């Protein structure tokens, strides 16, 4: 859907923000750009909606060189959540969200309906928040409005630059979960920027790890964890690589089917839960094994040894 082909960006002051970067974002997936501050994540993202023009190389959008596209049209079709949120404080929440639909000339009823729907989705009911100004909202609420504004005109592609940055860990985790749910409904291609590995592993189908100005590894979360390409990636992931692996591995991958044996009488986990949750439950209950249930029906068992096995590359997935 979006393809970077040997792209280099050098700013007017001589800073080379990214150098010779190539990767492709597949339709319907979430690709996360992650790396330390100043490594060129925002620069990469702004190349997509042409807020920045590449110095060398080409960016393709659905196979077309984006330079061939009208930049204003392009931007209206691509949702953009900017790093600094950038809400229009002089407008109400409702007007903020309605920005792009209005620019696109939707009729009033459709805009009103869409704004209502989105604010509902973001847990900011329009009756209560619609007429407030962004200055009256909390940080988390502002970020939600930023996301709603970007989603407003049903974009096929969303660019999200640290949309949940500057939030406390709890609110952040909540927003991440909510967004994962929303995303499942929306079917939209997402390019997501963060400098948190945890967030990258949680949100991404694919992860692009940046060192200063260069793309070091572009892979699935599992592969990044299992086969870090070099010391930089290994350091970046951190000492707790095994724990992080538990985070990105669903129980489904490590359970085995029951053969009618008796299972300990503890709360079951779901196949979609993470291995981390299963391990935590095991530590709490001291049971050694856990039932796995889908819709109340036991479908399998997960054992402590299997969870450990996630660290064993030879077992990979069952």
């Amino acid at each position, binding site marked *: 859907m979006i393809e970077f082909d040997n792209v280099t960006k050098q700013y007017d002051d001589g800073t080379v923000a990214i150098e010779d970067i190539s990767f492709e974002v597949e339709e319907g997936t979430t690709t996360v750009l992650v790396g330390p501050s100043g490594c060129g994540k925002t620069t990469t993202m702004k190349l997509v909606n042409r807020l920045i023009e590449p110095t060398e190389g080409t960016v393709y959008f659905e196979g077309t060189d984006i330079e061939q596209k009208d930049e204003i049209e392009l*931007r209206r079709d691509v949702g953009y959540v900017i790093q*600094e949120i950038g809400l*229009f404080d002089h407008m109400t929440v409702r007007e903020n969200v309605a920005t792009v639909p209005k620019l696109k000339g939707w009729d009033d009823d459709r805009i009103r309906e869409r704004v209502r729907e989105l604010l509902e989705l973001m847990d900011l009911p329009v009756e209560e928040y619609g007429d407030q100004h962004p*200055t009256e909202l909390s940080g988390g609420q502002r970020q939600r409005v930023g996301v709603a504004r970007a989603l407003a005109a049903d974009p096929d592609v969303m660019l999200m630059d640290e949309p949940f940055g500057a939030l406390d860990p709890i609110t952040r985790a909540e927003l991440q979960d909510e967004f994962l749910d929303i995303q499942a409904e929306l079917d939209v291609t997402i390019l997501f920027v963060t400098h948190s590995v945890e967030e990258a592993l949680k949100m991404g189908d694919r992860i692009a790890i940046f060192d200063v100005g260069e793309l070091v590894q572009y892979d699935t979360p599992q592969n990044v964890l299992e086969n870090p390409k070099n010391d930089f990636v290994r350091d970046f992931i951190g000492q707790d690589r095994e724990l992080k692996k538990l985070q990105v591995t669903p129980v489904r991958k490590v359970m085995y089917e029951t053969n009618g044996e008796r299972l300990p009488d503890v709360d079951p986990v779901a196949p979609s839960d993470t291995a981390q949750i299963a391990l935590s439950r095991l530590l709490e209950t001291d049971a050694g094994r856990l039932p796995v249930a889908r819709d109340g029906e036991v479908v399998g068992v997960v054992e402590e040894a299997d969870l450990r096995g996630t660290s064993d590359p030879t077992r990979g997935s069952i």
Partner: protein
Amino acid sequence: MPANAVALVGELAAIGGPAAIGGPAVLGELAAVGEPAFVVLGMITEVFRYFAENQTQLLEYTRQHAILVLRALVVAVPLGVTLGTLITYNDKLATVVLWLAGIMMTIPSVALFALLLPSLGTGSPPVVMALILYTQLPVIRNTYVGLTGVDEAAVEAGEGLGMTKFQRLRKIQIPMALPVVMSGVRNAVVLLVGIAAIGEIVGSGGLGVPIFEGYRSSNTVEIVGATVALALLTLTIDYAFGVVEQVFRLRNGEEIQPNLGTRAVRGLAGAAPSRVSGRDDDADATTTTTSAKP
């Protein structure tokens, strides 16, 4: 405030009670009273009598004065806002224009009136022209600062969401800058009212007339009376422009405590009730109009 002004002027006059005896006998009768308190009281009484006796004339001077200022503003504000907007596109131009407007501002008004005299003659033209020139710095500067000071993230978000340059100017920068521009106009207006009084040296009319008349006829009461009228005019205009500024700020969702005038205007306009809940005790003028707020 106006009462203060009267008292203050009275006090100024009173300081010299005894000393004034050697000077021109303007304050003669008053100073003879001796006690400063009596002088102040006497002065206040005299000024009120002057108001009562010269009502129509004073109103006419006030009207002339306000028209001088308004004529200047009608040209000066659009001019200043346009210039202030243009210079946001070019830093060098901005430096030069702001520098020139600053220089304008330092030229003494008496000198400027004199400089405009050969080409514009006497009467109101040189004064209106001078007022226009003096308005430029506050208006250009505030427009420039207002437009460039707009939250950069908001402007960039606008760009990223697909607004054209003109749409960003119209929908983000101008609305956000308006209150700042307005406060520049407000500063300018207070200045203009005072300068226009000096305009009478080239025969502009307005409240300068009774002030000079009082000077020529050594009539302190007339000077004080005209000064009070001038102060009232300044305060009124300042308040009116303050209301406009506040309305812009409230519309932008700023958290301010609106004054009574602002609330009344918003109430009359049927605008959304102010989110800053007014205290109950001073809501009398607006209770009926802001009742929409639960």
